[in-house]
């Protein structure tokens, strides 16, 4: 187990380094910050002075090292727009994004667990076909369009729910449904195939042969074992989930990191963009690690590599 954790942590370090290089490269290799900062009619020596001031005339690896050593202690520089540290701006906006993500995950599970189990137990029945059809259609719905349609129906027409905002529990309903509905199809399919696979295993037959009641077989024996692939894939899907949260935030004007990032991109405020990208990636990496370790803990086959 210790060897397994060490290997995971090493890989984690490499991935984080890679992400930091990517975030650095986006601004410093693809674009020129000075061109973005100064007005277009600025003189040539003005550019040179600014370049020197920001340390942009030094070699790339020196700049990267400065960026990285700052980033490690949470110093991503000041926002070019708001004159506050980028790190503080991003961290302040983190909670709404995290709440939305978990609310979306909850809705996704609320939809997909019962339907997935039902579809697996009534395999090839009309319920199963219906679930599959809804899942196939659900995967094709653009998240941001779904959000707008929800707003048109529930906020504009029926006036039941607020179209945007963050203050009351009603504000959570549409965004979390939107996000959950996007994740539900794939989760439902996974639950279904997981349960089907487990139901054909020997220990289920044994349990039945012993005369264990059918509901107990399904819940205690089958579902628990079907959870392992579901947890793993949900962990891997977390990046997708966060990506979905980003889209959802922009539709419902949710005051989270994603809205901040999109605003910062519009304002060309790159320290904030870099900081947001790196922190979000860190969250995803951390969640993946926790999922990996949890699954390895539950299932000894994984940590020994058998």
């Amino acid at each position, binding site marked *: 187990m210790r060897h397994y954790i060490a290997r995971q942590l090493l*890989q984690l370090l*490499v*991935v984080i380094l*890679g*992400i930091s290089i*990517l*975030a650095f490269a*986006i*601004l410093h290799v*693809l*674009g020129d910050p000075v061109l973005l900062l100064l007005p277009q009619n600025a003189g040539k020596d003005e550019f040179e002075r600014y370049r020197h001031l920001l340390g942009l005339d030094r070699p790339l690896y020196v700049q990267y090292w400065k960026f990285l050593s700052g980033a490690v202690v949470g110093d991503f520089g000041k926002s070019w727009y708001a004159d506050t540290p980028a790190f503080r701006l991003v961290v302040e906006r983190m909670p709404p994004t995290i709440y939305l993500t978990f609310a979306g995950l909850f809705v996704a599970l609320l939809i997909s667990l019962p339907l997935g189990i039902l579809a*697996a*137990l*009534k*395999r*090839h*029945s009309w319920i199963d076909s219906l679930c599959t059809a809804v899942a*196939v*259609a659900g*995967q*094709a*719905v*653009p*998240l*941001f*369009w779904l959000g*707008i*349609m929800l*707003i*048109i129906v529930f906020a*504009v027409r029926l006036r039941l729910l607020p179209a945007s905002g963050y203050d009351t529990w009603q504000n959570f309903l549409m965004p979390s449904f939107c996000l959950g509905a996007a994740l539900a199809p794939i989760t439902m399919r996974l639950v279904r195939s997981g349960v089907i696979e487990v*139901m*054909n295993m020997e220990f289920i*037959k044994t349990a039945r*042969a012993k005369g264990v009641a059918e509901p107990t077989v399904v819940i205690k024996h089958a579902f628990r074992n079907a959870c392992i692939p579901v947890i793993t894939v949900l962990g891997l899907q977390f*990046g997708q989930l*966060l*990506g979905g949260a*980003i*889209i959802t935030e*922009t539709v419902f004007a949710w005051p989270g990191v*994603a809205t901040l*990032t*999109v605003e910062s*991109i*519009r304002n*060309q405020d*790159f320290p904030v*963009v870099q900081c*947001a*990208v790196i922190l*979000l*990636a860190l969250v*995803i*990496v951390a969640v*993946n690690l926790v999922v990996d370790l949890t699954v390895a803990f539950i299932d000894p086959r994984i940590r020994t590599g058998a």
Partner: protein
Amino acid sequence: MTTVSAEGKVDLVALGEAAPAAPRERATLRRLGRLRWGLGATAVLLLIVGSAVFAPWIAPHDPLAVNIRHRLGPPAWMDGGVSSHLLGTDQVGRDLLSRMIFGGRVSLVVGVSAVLMSATIGVLLGLAAGYFGGSTDWSIMTLVNVMLTFPFVLLALAVIAVLGPNLVNMIIVLGVAGWPIYARVVRAEAMAIREREFVLAGRALGMSHLRIVFRQILPNLTSAIVVIATLQVAQVIILESFLSFLGLGIQPPTPAWGNMLGEGRLYMLNSWWIATFPGLAIFVTTLMINLMGNALRDWLDPHMKL
């Protein structure tokens, strides 16, 4: 002795008997059914592609022709709608149907070009990783992990913000960001095929690495690659429209489903149709592509797990 009624309830008596032929026939029928769905979807898709290609001859109006007097006109079947504007008009009186027909061009061009690009990169890197193994494999797979951890949407947003929003940049960003999925599948398959007899025989005969990889391994992977690429076109179309929706993709007045949706969002209080129809176009197109991709997978290789 009862026979097996549903697969969920296997009784022990039936286990010893010869398997009844019916389930297999039913499975074949189900596959045929799915193929029929796939064919239907392909037909609809051809219609969409055809209308995009022949847009100048099909569209009833010039998609850029402004007519302020007919602005925000509702669809023909509603009160105040006119038959010359079947789906109504937008905020400056442009014909919505014509703009949707032209808008398909952007989505399809971006979808197909970006997929060709990411398939090329992903297949080459996947082959290298799977065939050579060792440190080549390790570096490529680390890169894949970094890319998969990074929220794709965020990456695309940040890069577009630096490079500037236009058609070519969007294809490049979506193309470069999409390759890991191909690399992962191709690597796994290439690793398995590398150990097969015909490859060993080829190596014993003194074939070059290049020849083995491209003449012996790659042809075995075509169906997997074709299926992933088809399904990815749908993903890319959704992402492209999201970027355009945010105003970071195709710039107005050029019609694209995404930017039409983004503009329509501002008018959703009174004119729901402007945002609804372009989204419907995205939904139908991605649904048809997904159905076609699923049928293609069944047809090319029913055992493929993707």
